[in-house]
């Protein structure tokens, strides 16, 4: 009841807000309505998940942590000077885009896959990728299934509704010519419950999600994730279309974190690097150039991000690696170290 009503109220409100909140920032001009409103409100309105360890998860006292949460914190540090000035709104997969387009939130950092239709069709803009993921399958260890090639006609698969997972699953089973039974739940917790109870033979979602959800099973050691990855899932933060300045702020807040790691700038050494020899580092810590002015921010915006939130490597280690979700960085390693994290230069 709660879930359903909440969704409807939110969608109802969203439609009203969409109607009521007038024009959202003129494109092309240096003025950003979202930036102005954020400064006025004193906090960044950020949409997150309803609880995905490593990405966005609230602890018992309501503190949000995760690499998605760090994107929100970076934006708050850049814009408001304090990474804690964020208002988090937990959203279901179904609610997230409506909440964003209606102005309920200004940044969506909710392990959201970047796809063409989402980017082009429904008034959204993806600003980058903060986690390269791919869809995989989890099965019981004793099932005798060791690879996706062991799937046969009649297999039942549990997943989340309202995600790209549902579509990838169909593409995958169709390409293998396997008849399957899809069981799609609205919330991840119910998927875990149903799979754990034996309702389905396999659980499919993004591999990072599988690793995180496995910890919630009644006996995590009985389950394993199959080696194959069946899709590309570049996850990243999203903003509303039509406010180019705000879009740039969010994009470069994320890029700053990645670039900082590349140049070895982290939360503890950032302020001492102001008189570094390397001009790229000097730009990062705000000792050279006037980069902040381009978004209507001061020159220390990037320094605050690095100091208060840390660089991408610190964030990953803290939330994903040290929590045991995915100790190996895989593709989410810098391009200089064999991964595919590569951001345009900040200059």
């Amino acid at each position, binding site marked *: *009841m*709660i*879930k*359903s009503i909440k969704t409807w109220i939110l969608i109802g409100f*969203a*439609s009203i807000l*969409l*109607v*009521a*909140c*007038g*024009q*959202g920032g003129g494109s092309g001009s240096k003025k950003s309505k979202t930036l102005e409103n954020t400064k006025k409100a004193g906090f960044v309105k950020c949409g997150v998940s309803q609880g995905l360890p490593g990405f966005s998860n609230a602890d018992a006292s309501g503190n949000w942590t995760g690499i998605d949460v760090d994107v929100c914190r970076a934006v708050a540090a850049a814009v408001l000077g304090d990474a804690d000035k964020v208002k988090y709104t937990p959203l279901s*997969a*179904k609610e997230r*885009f*409506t909440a964003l*387009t209606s102005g309920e939130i200004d940044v969506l950092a909710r392990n959201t896959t970047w796809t063409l*239709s*989402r980017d082009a*069709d*429904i*008034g959204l803009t993806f600003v980058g990728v903060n986690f390269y993921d791919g869809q995989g399958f989890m099965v*019981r260890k*004793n*099932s*005798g*299934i060791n690879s996706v090639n062991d799937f*046969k*006609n*009649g*297999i*039942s698969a*549990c997943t989340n*509704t*309202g*995600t790209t997972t*549902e*579509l990838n699953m*169909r*593409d995958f089973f*169709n390409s293998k010519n396997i008849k*399957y*039974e*899809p*069981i*799609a*739940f*609205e*919330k991840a917790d*119910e998927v875990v*419950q*149903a799979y754990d*109870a*034996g*309702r389905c*033979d396999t659980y499919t979602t993004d591999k990072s999600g599988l690793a995180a959800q496995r910890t919630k099973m009644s006996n995590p050691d009985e389950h394993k994730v199959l080696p194959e990855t069946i899709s590309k899932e570049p996850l990243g933060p999203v903003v*509303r*279309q*039509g406010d180019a300045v705000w879009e740039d702020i969010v994009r470069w807040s994320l890029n700053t974190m990645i670039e900082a790691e590349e140049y070895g700038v982290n939360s503890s050494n950032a302020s001492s690097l102001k008189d570094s020899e390397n001009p790229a580092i000097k730009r990062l810590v705000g000792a050279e150039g006037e980069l902040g002015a381009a978004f209507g921010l001061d020159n220390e915006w990037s320094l605050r991000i690095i100091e208060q939130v840390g660089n991408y490597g610190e964030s990953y280690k803290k939330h994903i690696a040290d929590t045991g979700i995915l100790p190996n960085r895989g593709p989410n390693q810098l391009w200089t170290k064999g991964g595919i994290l590569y951001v345009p230069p900040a200059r």
Partner: protein
Amino acid sequence: MNFKNFKFDLSNKNKNLIPQVLTVLFILLLVIYFTINAQNNMGNRGISFGFGFLSQESSFDITFSLIDYDGSHSYARAFLVGLLNTILVSVIGIFFATILGVTVGISRLSQNYLIAKTAEWYVEIFRNIPLILQIFFWYFAALRALPLTIDSINFYDISFLNVKGWYVPKFLWTNFSLFLYSIIFAIIIVIFFLRYAKKQRDEFGKQFPTFYISLAILFILPTLTFLIGGVSLTFEIPELTQLSKTVYVYKGGVSIIPELIALALALSMYTATFIAENVRAGILGVSKGQKEAAASIGLTKGQILKLVVMPQALRIIIPPTTNQYLNLTKNSSLAAAIAYPDIVLVFAGTALMQTGRAIEIISITMLTYLSLSLSISVFMNWYNKKMAIREK
């Protein structure tokens, strides 16, 4: 004189009319304003509005469908699948809620202490727990309680119950249409016979054993089609298949998914409590004098209930029970929580997400529920009118 009359009209009729017209006008303007504003805002944000997406390929699959469907069909077809699933669970729910509700309602008035108390406890427990919790309870409790496929509960080797669902044999007909026609034909004959019997009773006081004769007609005609019409029926029995070392599944037959069972169970158990109270109120609402009068002219207990009490009680029962039917239908939208593919999960869920067309899809879904509810209302109002007192 004329002028005075005109003034009189103004002060009485039109004075009432003007505020009403103004209110309607105001609401209309508000709606127009919001619509135009919404269109502008969507335009500014690069969101297009339109229903063209309905004919696009949906590219997602659905567990359970009454019609032929897979991801290569359109969103419109997915909508239809969801709608039919909503109707299916509502019809099943209403059917069992009514039977259970009437039984419990009558039981509460029973002279037998145990029966009356059991009914009372049932009502008090099930109407006071939120429906969503009951749905979760039936679903997850049942899932945990049911055995895995390999250890299915076996009903005479033809039907199997396990955590993946209830597997029953599938009927394979030959010349099914002939059989169907014979049933329809038998029903028509029964209707004519009942009319004839009533006329005979009203005019000449002749009594027929109508129940047994109707039953015989309904039984004999379809049976004849088997014997001489070439209709035959075979069963496809579900068969256990091994997919891997420990993964088994039943193939063939018809599978009733646990989501449907849990949802139908929760909806009917919950709604039955309210119907039971309506039934109790209806029966208690018929004055004692009616029963005593009926007894004094020599009617039996069964006849009193059937001919005197129930016709009057129904007038009290039907209107609030209509509300319960409407509630049940709307409550079926909670299906999304346990993955039963109803219209909310399939259309206002997955389809909304894949297309991002929130306003269009939510409008369609709201209109659909509105039409469903109005259809039930129209039918129940017709039935209510039929049962109403006819002054002679």
